[in-house]
């Protein structure tokens, strides 16, 4: 038994089935814990009062929106290079959740910007590049939907993902490269976080909850895709009969 065992769809189907409950419950518990910190332990902010609590959703969602895209690009590249079926399935399973998080990041950003900055939306570099990310997600999903042939769809979608990946570093560094209205990042590897410890803790717990949620949802989706594509095989038939 080695790592490659799980690269086969049949084995991965079983493994994913075992992992899903763990990640689902993990996501739920972490979300409860994170929300408890966000609303009951984290104190009022000195300048933004209670409105800052949107950060507990906004920042994890924004992180996930970029991170999921990079993971999709990674799986796409692996699939294109080594022709591994499972990587394409992973990329497909992640996209809708990535789009959801991008939308949430934009939505919560607007609701945060209106009371704090005084505008729902400004066309600064950070906001614009995040909007482009949403368009990219939508385009990739639409391309997959338009191509009936599975193999062609996998490859075409991955190529589009790869060419759009250049947008992610632009989003991330936009607040550094340009003077935007959007504030800089509070978390930075180079310096101490500019947040009170309990606030930081709440944000990180929410971020990990978002991670767990993404993994759980992606695994459920990838299981469906595997079953759909492997329906001709004996093991898939057996699973369908037993379930």
């Amino acid at each position: 038994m080695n790592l490659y065992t799980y690269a086969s769809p049949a084995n991965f189907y079983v493994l994913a089935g075992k992992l899903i409950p763990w990640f689902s419950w993990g996501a739920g518990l972490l979300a409860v814990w994170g929300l408890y910190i966000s609303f009951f332990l984290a104190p009022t902010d000195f300048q933004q009062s209670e409105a800052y609590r949107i950060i507990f959703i906004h920042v994890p969602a924004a992180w996930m929106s970029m991170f999921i895209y990079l993971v999709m690009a990674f799986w796409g590249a692996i699939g294109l290079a080594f022709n591994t079926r499972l990587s394409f399935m992973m990329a497909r399973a992640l996209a809708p959740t990535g789009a959801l998080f991008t939308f949430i990041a934009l939505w919560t950003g607007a609701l945060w910007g209106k009371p704090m900055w005084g505008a729902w939306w400004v066309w600064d570099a950070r906001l614009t590049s995040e909007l482009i990310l949403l368009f990219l997600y939508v385009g990739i999903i639409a391309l997959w939907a338009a191509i009936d042939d599975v193999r062609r769809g996998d490859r075409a979608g991955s190529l589009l993902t790869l060419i759009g990946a250049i947008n992610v570093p632009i989003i991330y560094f936009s607040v550094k490269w340009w003077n935007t209205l959007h504030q800089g990042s509070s978390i930075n590897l180079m310096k101490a976080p500019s947040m009170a410890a309990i606030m930081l803790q709440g944000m990180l717990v929410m971020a990990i909850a978002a991670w767990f949620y993404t993994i759980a949802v992606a695994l459920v989706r990838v299981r469906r895709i595997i079953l759909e594509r492997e329906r001709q095989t004996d093991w898939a038939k057996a699973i369908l009969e037993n379930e």
Partner: protein
Amino acid sequence: MPDALLSVHDLACARGERLLFKGMNFGLGKGELLLVQGGNGQGKTSLLRLLTGLARPEEGEVRWRGESIRRVGEAYHGEMCYLGHANGVKDDLNPVENLRFADGMHGRAFDQTRAVATLERLGLSRCLDLPCRVLSFGQRRRVALAALLLAGATLWILDEPLTGLDVHAVVLMEGLIRNHLTAGGMVVATTHQALNLDGVAVQRLLVGNVAIPALM
């Protein structure tokens, strides 16, 4: 298969959900013709597209001079010429211009006298400066055949080369194939029509949803 230039190893092909064939093996040497036969939708065209390298096999590989065509790619394409259902003839160009582009595509300088001679040999002397749009289907097919002849490739891969050709053209085509084979060329072709090819080494390959035994 020591002298097989083109060989196929454990080839499997699927279109969409359907497995068309698997475990296909054969080899083709100089001066040999492979006739691919089978009913509609059994994978004849799919096999030819695998042999050209346009499509990717589900399993197995196609080799040219012992190396996978994925690896040798462009060198293989220099020795191979494909004629599909569509002629690849531009309607807005006249036959000579079409051949000029075909030459440029292979990185060769254009030899006008040779091109005109080939077109005349194929019975197109009266259409040399007409746009291909006004030519009949059979005439356009002949333009495509002229490009095939000029390419000077060792291996011809022909998908239904006889469709749309009249009796004279069929005889002409048979002659071309025979000449090509006697000159040491190789042909892989699909056809529904009978070909009169006496004195030619013909392999027949039945494509269908059954495992095909090795032919050699």
